[in-house]
């Protein structure tokens, strides 16, 4: 395990830093060596990438804060336009010395302005002889801003002629960033995923004060055994650990087992965690509801998850419109005659099946269909006569806003709108059952 060493910083600070960033020592020492000493020019831009919650943001923040390096930390999702982003950087830079009151807000519309104002800010904050770090979190958002923003940030050092380093943090690789006009290549650094051992170590660090570290470590071990297969997100795991710990402690609190009785504790917690995986983890029921359930010893069966409420009540004709749309989406046009004409004669499936239609239409997904076809099918599947009233047409639009149908292509009403049915087979079968319509009989795939 490499100990952090750097001549520019006191050893005590480095030791503290090391304790704060477990399992990321090699990356931190790499960064430290790139940064160099305070006054030294560093690499103009650094690109750090790695999977969700691999500690990118956390490591950068602790590093800059512990070493008290002048820095600006901006989230690109939060500042969604280039103007907001640039202004935020300037504001943070100006407010570094906290005693100065919020400086008059200066509008900054272009990168040119930004460079000018940036230089002013550096002078006013008296930072000429130190490297300033501009960290852009969630940098993938930069690609959606004006084309000049990303290349300009990459060579900010050159443009401003100041000692500044831009650090980009992202979850995707650099190759997806590179603009086709070319740009300055940043130094890329990869943060690998935490291994199970790493996770164990990090999670154990924050054990509750009432219990011993060993006891908590055993709990984390069980937790990881259940959840590691589905979730490697450190934040999520920590959340789950906190949620279920009280249940784990229950036998100890009641005095039925002592802290070392691992087997008993495991028996108690394991089914509980499995249930948690199907409910809380998927956000089927919320964590506060989960906690209340634990407290009240209620059965989780009483509380239905979000997916349990899949039933949608629709007006009578909306149901038939949806059924008609489903049929139009999943049946080939040629087969309409066979399904909806009274005297279609005997057409066997094999006779009129084309080669490419051998694959199930349900595997291929819904196909778009024109409005006329939808209405024609509707008129033939509803028993009584349906008048083409304005209400019918507005119901189609409501189905689109409810996202049960989706409009395909352009919105030109004159051009004959085309739709797709987006509901699942289970859903449409449930709907069809309520109006006594045997939809399977009308689907080409199930012939």
């Amino acid at each position, binding site marked *: 395990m490499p100990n952090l060493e750097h001549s520019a910083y006191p050893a005590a600070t480095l030791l503290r830093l090391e304790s704060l960033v477990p399992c990321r020592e090699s990356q931190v020492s790499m960064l430290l060596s790139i940064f160099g000493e305070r006054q030294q020019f560093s690499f103009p831009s650094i690109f750090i990438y790695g999977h969700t919650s691999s500690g990118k943001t956390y490591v950068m923040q602790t590093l800059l804060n512990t070493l008290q390096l002048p820095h600006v930390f901006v989230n690109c999702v939060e500042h969604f336009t280039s103007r907001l982003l640039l202004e935020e950087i300037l504001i943070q830079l100006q407010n570094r010395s906290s005693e100065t009151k919020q400086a008059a807000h200066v509008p900054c519309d272009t990168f040119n302005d930004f460079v000018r104002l940036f230089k002013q800010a550096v002078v006013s904050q008296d930072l000429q002889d130190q490297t300033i770090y501009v960290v852009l979190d969630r940098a993938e958002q930069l690609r959606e801003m004006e084309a000049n923003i990303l290349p300009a940030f990459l060579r900010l050092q050159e443009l401003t002629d100041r000692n500044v380093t831009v650090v980009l943090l992202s979850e995707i690789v650099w190759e997806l960033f590179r603009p086709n006009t070319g740009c300055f290549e940043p130094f890329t650094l990869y943060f690998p995923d935490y291994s199970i051992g790493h996770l164990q170590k990090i999670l154990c660090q924050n054990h509750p004060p009432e219990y011993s570290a060993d006891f908590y470590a055993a709990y984390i071990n069980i937790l990881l055994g259940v959840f590691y297969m589905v979730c490697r997100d450190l934040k999520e795991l920590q959340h789950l650990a906190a949620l279920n710990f009280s249940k784990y402690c229950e036998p100890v609190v009641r005095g039925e087992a002592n802290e070392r009785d691992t087997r008993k504790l495991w028996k108690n917690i394991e089914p509980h965690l499995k249930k948690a995986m199907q409910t809380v983890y998927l956000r089927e029921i919320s964590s506060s509801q989960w906690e209340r359930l634990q407290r009240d010893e209620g059965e989780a069966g009483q509380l239905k998850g979000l997916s349990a409420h899949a039933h949608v009540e629709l007006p009578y004709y909306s149901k038939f419109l949806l059924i008609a749309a489903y049929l139009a989406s999943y049946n080939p046009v040629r087969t309409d005659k066979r399904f909806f004409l009274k005297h279609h004669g005997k057409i066997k499936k094999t006779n009129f099946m084309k080669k490419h239609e051998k694959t199930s239409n349900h595997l291929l997904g819904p196909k778009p269909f024109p409005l006329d076809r939808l209405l024609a099918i509707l008129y033939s599947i509803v028993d009584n006569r349906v008048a083409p009233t304005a209400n019918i047409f507005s119901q189609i639009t409501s189905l689109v806003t409810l*996202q049960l149908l989706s409009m395909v292509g352009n919105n030109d009403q004159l*051009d004959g709108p085309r739709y797709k049915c987006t509901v699942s087979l289970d859903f449409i079968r449930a709907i069809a059952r309520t109006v006594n319509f045997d939809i399977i009989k009308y689907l080409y795939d199930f012939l």
Partner: protein
Amino acid sequence: MSVGSVSKGCFVFKPSPKKRKVSQKTADYFREGNSDSEDSELRFATCQSLWKHVKLETEQIEEDLNTQLFDNLVSFLRRSHSEFQEKTAEWNCRMKSREIPTAALVLGVNVTDHDLTFRSLSEVLQNRVTPYVALLQAKDCPGIKNLMQKLLGQLMNCYVDVDSSEEDDYVQTSQNRIRCSMTSLITWYESVTKKTDFETPSKKRTSSRHWQSPPVVVIFKDMESFTTKVLQDFIVISSQHIRELPLVLIFGIATSPMIIHSLLPHSVSSLLCIELFQSLSCKEHLSTIIDKVLLTTQFPLKLSEKVLQVLINIFLYHDFSVQNFIKGFQLCIVEHFYTQPLSVLCCHQGELKKRINSLSHNQCENIRRLPSFRRYVENQPSEKQIALLTTDSFLKETVQRLLEDLNVYHENYFPVLRCLHVFTSSLPKYPLGKQIRELHCACLENRVWETEEYESFLQLARMLNKCDLVTMLQKCVEILMSSPGKEFDKTVEKLKEFLTQFQKLEAEACQERDESVSSQKELQKKTDLYHLQKTLLELKESRRSKKLTKFEMLRFEVVDYIDSVVRNYLVPADHKTLHEIVYFNTASVLREHLNAAPRVALHTALNNPYSYLKSQALRSDGGSISNKAPDICIVYKLHLECGRLINLVDWLEAFSTVVTAVEGPNADAPSSDQVDDVIHARFIRAVSELELLGFIKPSKQKTDHVARLTWGGC
């Protein structure tokens, strides 16, 4: 307002000084264009006051129905952030990630009703939880930027509303240059909450109904319509600031809560702490409205069976919207008072006498013309007939008596209807409908006891077991006791008598059971097969010919009595004299207005212009095309005969043939193969009009062809 200009442009209108006159207008409309302008002002006033009452009543019902839901939501909001405020130091809370409390509010597909629900919800929240409520709509938020703008605008405006006007200029200045970011929202929130801390004690009292640092509630009215990206971005951003800004989200969901999972990926939905809330289903809502508004004597206006059926059908078949149902009812009210001059008598009992006495001679004639009244007159002795037809004062007396009768009929009708519903709703297969509205329609339609369903109801009722029968009877007694009708004393007594008889039976039943047990014992004694068979046959025989038990007798009696009550009180309304005055029954008007068929109307207009233009020359006979019809009609009729693609040249030729057909004899020689320029121009104009109406569109598949966009004659 009309402008004397053909061109499009911006016109300035100074607000007219006589604003009062505008409100007068509606009353004038009511009078104008109506041949029977008798008492129109009074009718208008009655109509207005009736509608006002109905509106108040329905709003009250709505509020009552929503209380439960809103209470749950309020307690959720109270809970959501308090936990963190109380014990931030605890290990558990430090380790848990701070999720955004989110209420998924499932409201059903009747989107038109949601507006009202949300409005009252935000009112409730502002009164009880927090002044900071923002309502967002998908159509205002195509991007995250617009969303933030709307959010900031709404929140900061509400701040102005809460406080006095001294801060006006501060907000004014900041609003212009506000940066639409979360940081500015947080600074605003901090400044607002800090201000309440330093407030004068007098002001503190008002703010005490909200607690310290009240949550900021953001309501997404129509979750389904929001784009995924906007929602995701917003949730990600706000989750980063949840510690500084106690935010609570409310998702208004029309379909099912599954939509959350389909809109948001796990990485985003894991930032939320979602709890589910479900509003009352709109069907139940409608039942309550019908029960409380239509099935009472509270409002003098009643709906006939057909009208009610139209309204209910629109609800069930098309939109599930309770608001639209109420709007439909409003239309009925207006239409009834507008078209029926005698509706002036459709008022509460107290005013009736005065209004009858002030009826003019014309109105008396109107009464004499009513079909139900004529039927009534015909059944009277001849001297009375003459008096009724000639003497206004006698007529007025009779009318007053008849209307009072009608009122009594209603007072009796509804309680008895409810009693009958108690029976029918618990029988298997619901012979007369599960809902009371279906029963009501059946009773209004014709004599309910003549229908087959009623027969099967009686048969099923004769098979009820005792326990059910007793509870039903008890319910009926309750209903009848609580009704204002005066004639029910005897009925109630009779029902109570039945109940006591049932109780007596219970005692006797014990004895009977003993008897049957003894016969069972006898059976067990017989071991010989032959004897056993014999006794079994005997038993069967005796059971078949057995006299009815006392319970069965009593049951028959009860059912017969119920039947007699029904026959007595549930007479259809249109058998009653003067029912036209209080019943609105022109269903066709209602259907035309509420369930319009634009395609059909367009087709009729183009295919048979006479139906709208009413010019004798256009009176067509059969399918021939008259050249006197407007050009577009001719073009339309010709295009109906074509396939999907229409050749323009052929079409033009056909058009010119039709147009010149009759004029032909005068001047046929000069233009035989050359089409006249004027005709050509008329044709082009007609075709482009058809294109504008959406019947055809230019096609690229074939040159000189246009494509039809409709099939058949609708």
